[in-house]
């Protein structure tokens, strides 16, 4: 279920259960983002204009690294759920709608790979 588009919402085969799950998971990611966004932003505004070594050290700290990683991944997941609802509201042509949803899915997965790669590399970098 995690990070997967809901087939029932993609076409005419509407299934109430899937829509309900979509709704529940959207609340779930929203609640997770409440503490994560506060923790991450407080970290970020303190270091974003600092030199490389200092920023690197900050995000090599396991807690900061994990908070930043989770904030970005869960934001991506939450964004995907949110934008699906927006597209379902505005794109009525089913062909175009499915294409847009699929492209957004591919983009999100690509970004997930980039993010995980970056964070593992940062964590293991030697100073």
């Amino acid at each position, binding site marked *: 279920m995690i990070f997967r588009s809901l087939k029932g919402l993609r076409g005419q085969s509407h299934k109430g259960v899937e829509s309900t799950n979509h709704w529940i998971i959207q609340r779930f990611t929203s609640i997770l*983002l409440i503490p994560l966004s506060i923790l991450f932003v407080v970290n970020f*505004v303190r270091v974003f204009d600092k030199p*490389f070594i200092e920023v690197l050290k900050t*995000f090599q700290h396991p807690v900061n690294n994990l908070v930043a990683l989770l904030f970005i991944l869960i934001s991506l997941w939450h*964004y995907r759920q949110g934008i699906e609802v927006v597209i379902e509201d505005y794109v009525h042509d089913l062909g175009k709608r499915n294409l847009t949803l699929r492209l957004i899915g591919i983009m999100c997965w690509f*970004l997930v790979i980039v*993010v995980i790669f*970056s964070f593992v590399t940062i964590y293991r*970098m030697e100073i």
Partner: protein
Amino acid sequence: MTQDPQNRPLSPHLTIYRPQLNSVLSIMHRITGIVLFFGLLLLIFWFFSMSVGQASFDLFSALINSLIGKLILLGSLCALWYHFFTGVRHLFWDVGIGFGLEWVQRSSYAVLIATISLIILTLLIGVFTV
């Protein structure tokens, strides 16, 4: 919907609809959600540039610390805290708290005040960290 699909009532009539605080806040939640994606993208690039090494990080850092870069960051921050508080209000609505015109009106003001306060607070944290 058993009605004739060509002939459904058109509501609201956007061209003659007077914008109200609550409707503006509602549509702004959606707009900030869409816009925040670009802030997120910037963040992902930032971490990616860091993972590539110092040279690419320094280049990207110079970009986001330019005037335009800082304005984009500030815009993302405002959008985030706005979306955060309207989002929290949505979650209260979802469990049935805060309905009724009076409460909605009050919480709209609360959302605006909370958003502005948190933006200022985060900026202060950023400025006063050595």
